[in-house]
């Protein structure tokens, strides 16, 4: 006999289903996730019902997480790399009350990490899943607003207009002007928008140990970069892809000079300072430094 798990027992908020969505909706999303994993980088349309959180505020990532999460999972939610950002807090609270799962701010402890705009600094493992909140899933939106047309362009692998766009950028500005959401080729077949992660994080998608799931709620698309998949940011032989330059920058909290940093301006003096965007990693570096100093 198969043991049946009583999911409702884990819900802290009475009257709501485990992880909020009903099982039929979850099943549909899981089917779409499987398709996305089977065709790396391909955008799979899904129904994307409304959630009690606003469109554009993480509803795609939420639906993916709600569909894959189980009572034994350990969840981490970050916004801009930070666990304490108000939207991260709100999303974590929503998922925690409807699932009762354990949450963490430590990347290494999490089984599922839901993120907006960052990949954690600490490399993730094969037993972890990284779920991205995606505002615009279509990398070709830069050059073509119509979804009917971009669908054809993907089908024909016709990315010529994107290449011309990048080339013209270099001619006009001397540099490719795309900061975050850098268009990248997956498995030499589909061009993806890796969500608005900085270029700093794009190389982490390549041949990674971790499954990356991308959910765009308002645009109703799911796509995936499976583990050990080739991910190549678009670049020219004579104009290479480059990540953000933090030469001579040190985090004022942990002293790191090898992490992605946000610029902050000191109140009063207006002096420019830097601080790690991944707050949990920064805390760990800071604690380690203190231990070294004490020891």
């Amino acid at each position: 006999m198969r043991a049946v798990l009583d999911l409702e027992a884990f819900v802290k908020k009475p009257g709501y289903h485990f992880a909020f969505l009903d099982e039929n909706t979850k099943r549909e999303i899981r089917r779409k996730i499987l398709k996305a994993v089977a065709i790396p980088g391909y955008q799979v349309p899904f129904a994307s019902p409304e959630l009690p959180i606003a469109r554009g505020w993480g509803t795609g990532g939420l639906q993916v997480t709600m569909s894959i999460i189980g009572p034994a999972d350990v969840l981490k939610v970050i916004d801009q790399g930070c666990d304490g950002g108000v939207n991260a807090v709100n999303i974590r609270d929503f998922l925690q009350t409807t699932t009762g799962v354990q949450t963490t701010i430590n990347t290494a402890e999490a089984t599922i990490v839901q993120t907006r705009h960052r990949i954690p600094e600490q490399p993730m493992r094969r037993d972890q899943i990284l779920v991205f909140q995606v505002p615009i899933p279509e990398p070709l939106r830069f050059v073509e607003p119509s979804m009917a047309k971009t669908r054809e362009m993907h089908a024909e692998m016709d990315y010529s207009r994107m290449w011309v766009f990048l080339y013209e950028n270099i001619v006009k500005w001397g540099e490719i002007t795309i900061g975050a959401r850098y268009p990248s080729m997956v498995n030499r077949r589909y061009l993806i928008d890796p969500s608005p992660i900085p270029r700093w994080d794009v190389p982490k998608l390549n041949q990674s140990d971790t499954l990356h799931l991308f959910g765009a709620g308002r645009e109703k698309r799911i796509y995936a970069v499976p583990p050990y998949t080739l991910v190549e940011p678009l670049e020219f032989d004579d104009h290479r892809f480059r990540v953000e330059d933090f030469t001579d920058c040190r985090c004022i909290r942990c002293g790191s000079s090898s992490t992605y940093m946000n610029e902050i301006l000191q109140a009063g003096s207006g002096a420019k300072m830097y601080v790690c965007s991944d707050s949990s990693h920064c805390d760990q570096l800071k604690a380690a430094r203190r231990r070294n100093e004490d020891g």
Partner: protein
Amino acid sequence: MGYVAVSGGEDAIRRSRELVDYFRLRGESSPIEVKQIREQQRLAVDKVMGEGALYAPDIAALALKQAEGDSVEASFIVRAYRATQPRRYISKPVDTTDMQVIRRISGAFQDIPGGQILGPTRDYTLRLIDFSLLEETGASVQTFLSKLGIDPSGVGDSAPFAKVVDLLRAEGLLEEVESNEGAPSDITRENLPFPLPRSAKLQTLARGETGAMMALAYSSIRGYGDIHPYLGELRIGTVPLYLPHPDGVQTVYAGRVLVTEAEIIAQYAEGEKGCTPKLTLGYGFCFGHNELKALSMGILDRCMRSRAPVKAPAEDEEFVLTHIDGVEASGFVAHWKLPHYVTFQSTLDRLRKSQRMGE
């Protein structure tokens, strides 16, 4: 130090939720009853039912109370509630000739069979602030109602009316639209690629945001496009709703819903070779009493079927249908309130690099 985003979020959010209620209640006036909103803010409730895509007057009124009267926010709350409800049945198609009308007019014909029925409208009132409403009391309301002598049951006073456009159809002046037989799509269950089937188009329009649809319809009739519409007929009233019986033969009466229907007649279909020129129809239909929305929907439905080689914004199906949803549009516009430190840092990096290249 300015770096406070790491902690404190939970407490700030909790306090902010309390403040929302504080600002709603701090005047200490007696709480508005949902029944009052449903009856006295009738058009606001109808708008929320339409845009929230759920026919539930009490829930729409409650959402308006909760949202302090913000119709976009109230529609969002209703939509999120709707998404948790199971879909059990698909009703039989509604026949609007069965409508018990409260208002019915035609702008294209002076005299229509059954007559024009003005019904409740502000169209011919002067938009002056009515200061006498400051003095409204329970007693004055009772006096007004008893003097009026209207049977509040409203039953049995309107016979079925033939549709105005059917007269044109009988004469062969109206181009027939593609057949809509077969199971309709359901845009809440399936995400379809463009061009959408007609049922999906109409569903998207029927739950669109009134203001957004009005703006796009206005752009077309003002000159961005070449649609010259007439109002064939606008009717508002209740229609009976029937569900299929599980035996597959009979139907089950489910109740009546208040709806607004607009039939827009536009001039000749753009001539295709060998076709006689005909009039074409744009169809508008929504929950509740919302004339601007039904009219805008009718105009947009017609615009999107334009065969013009160069399309105006209101004639581009994908442009119209992806931008009129109030829940999606409001969410994404508002999301710029979220932190974008990381992406902005990345933008600054590119900008500084470009500036250095230019030096």
